[in-house]
């Protein structure tokens, strides 16, 4: 198939077609009084500047630093994150799953694109793509190889298919050599992919 990478590199023809098509729809909806274009501007700005994986990274860093918070997070993700005060409100049904030397967790939505927006922002194109959605559940090690990640032998893989309104965030393993680090510095090790399970936290040498 030649279209499999269109999500990355849209053809110029689709671009102009879509610009016109979306503009027409927005105009009709605004003229009929269903939407306020100014509200759209605020939504776009929020997703471009406010919501993103930096929030999840702070949650992970806090869990690495504070055993009581980690217990609370694994017990009830929504409650723990809301209590942390990162956001005014956090959506229900957030579930944090912990990576250990025995088990590596990976999150997917095979049916659509379910993703923990509030803590990770909007999902990347690859997360919503056919290759990831098809392979994560039966060849997660192959998927990890696409990300340049190899797990130690002896580590089992657990894949969570987000088939309901529950949302998952992976609590990656804290890298060795970070003893005494503050939460802000720890958060700099936490990548988006490490919270989806297609990556690991960064090596401390990469940031120090």
């Amino acid at each position, binding site marked *: 198939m030649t279209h499999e990478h269109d999500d990355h590199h849209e053809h110029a023809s689709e671009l102009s077609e879509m610009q016109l098509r979306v503009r027409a729809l927005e105009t009709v909806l605004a003229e009929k009084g269903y939407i306020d274009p100014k509200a759209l501007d*605020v939504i776009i700005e929020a997703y471009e500047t406010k919501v993103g994986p930096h929030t999840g990274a702070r949650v992970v860093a806090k869990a690495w630093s504070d055993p009581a918070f980690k217990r609370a997070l694994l017990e009830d993700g929504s409650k723990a994150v809301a209590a942390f005060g990162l956001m005014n409100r956090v959506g229900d049904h957030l579930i944090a799953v912990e990576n250990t030397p025995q088990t590596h967790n990976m999150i997917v939505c095979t*049916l659509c694109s379910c993703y923990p927006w509030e803590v990770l922002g909007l999902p990347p194109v690859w997360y919503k793509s056919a290759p990831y959605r098809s392979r994560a559940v039966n060849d997660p090690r192959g998927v990890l190889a696409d990300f340049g990640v190899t797990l130690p032998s002896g580590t089992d893989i657990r894949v969570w298919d987000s088939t309901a309104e529950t949302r998952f965030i992976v609590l990656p393993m804290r890298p060795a050599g970070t003893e005494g680090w503050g939460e802000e510095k720890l958060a700099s090790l936490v990548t988006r992919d490490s919270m989806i399970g297609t990556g690991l936290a960064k090596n401390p040498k990469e940031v120090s």
Partner: protein
Amino acid sequence: MDGIHDMGGMHGFGKVEPEPNEPVFHAPWEGRTLALNRALGYTGIWTIDQTRYGIERLPPDVYLSSSYYRKWEIRLENLMIELGLIGADELKAGHALRPGKALKRKLTAADVPNTLTRGSYTRPASAPARFKAGDRVRTRNIHPQTHTRLPRYARGKVGTVEAVRGCHVYPDTAAIGQGDNPQWLYTVLFDGRELWGEGSDPSLKVSIEAFEPYIEPA
């Protein structure tokens, strides 16, 4: 429905290709499309499951050859026309040709910060949960023509209930305008070999979030 969207376990789609430093939106129209979806969702004209079903009903060739937000745009057009809120002639004209209908509410810029968080999908239960953690269950072998969240790869398979997640809106009915019909939700865990046979990675386990009507005692 057994549609093209149900991709778990399919072969032939190639490698996963992460894009370094990927922007939030690849073109301004993508952001507008996302925002239109949010703003219309706020008016209460549909449920999240109706919108998912709207994507699933796209023809398979359109589904596979359209970028993510292109699918969203086409879905929006289709649903608005289905609901009788706009006309295809208006989209073609690029302008409203008739007055709009009254909707429950309209999203203003000031309200946006309060709407960025998802609501709750839990609902009061009408009966106790039928299963508990540790129970062995078999997923049903169902093939509804309409929306379901039981993926094909996990039908007719034996697994273990790992957790009870509360009682939630049931997508299979909410998607087709038949109400919340709340059902208990479980995390059900399968061995890779149960799903993928003897060639499976022996260290693999996969879970789905299964509504009670999807499972029966094993």
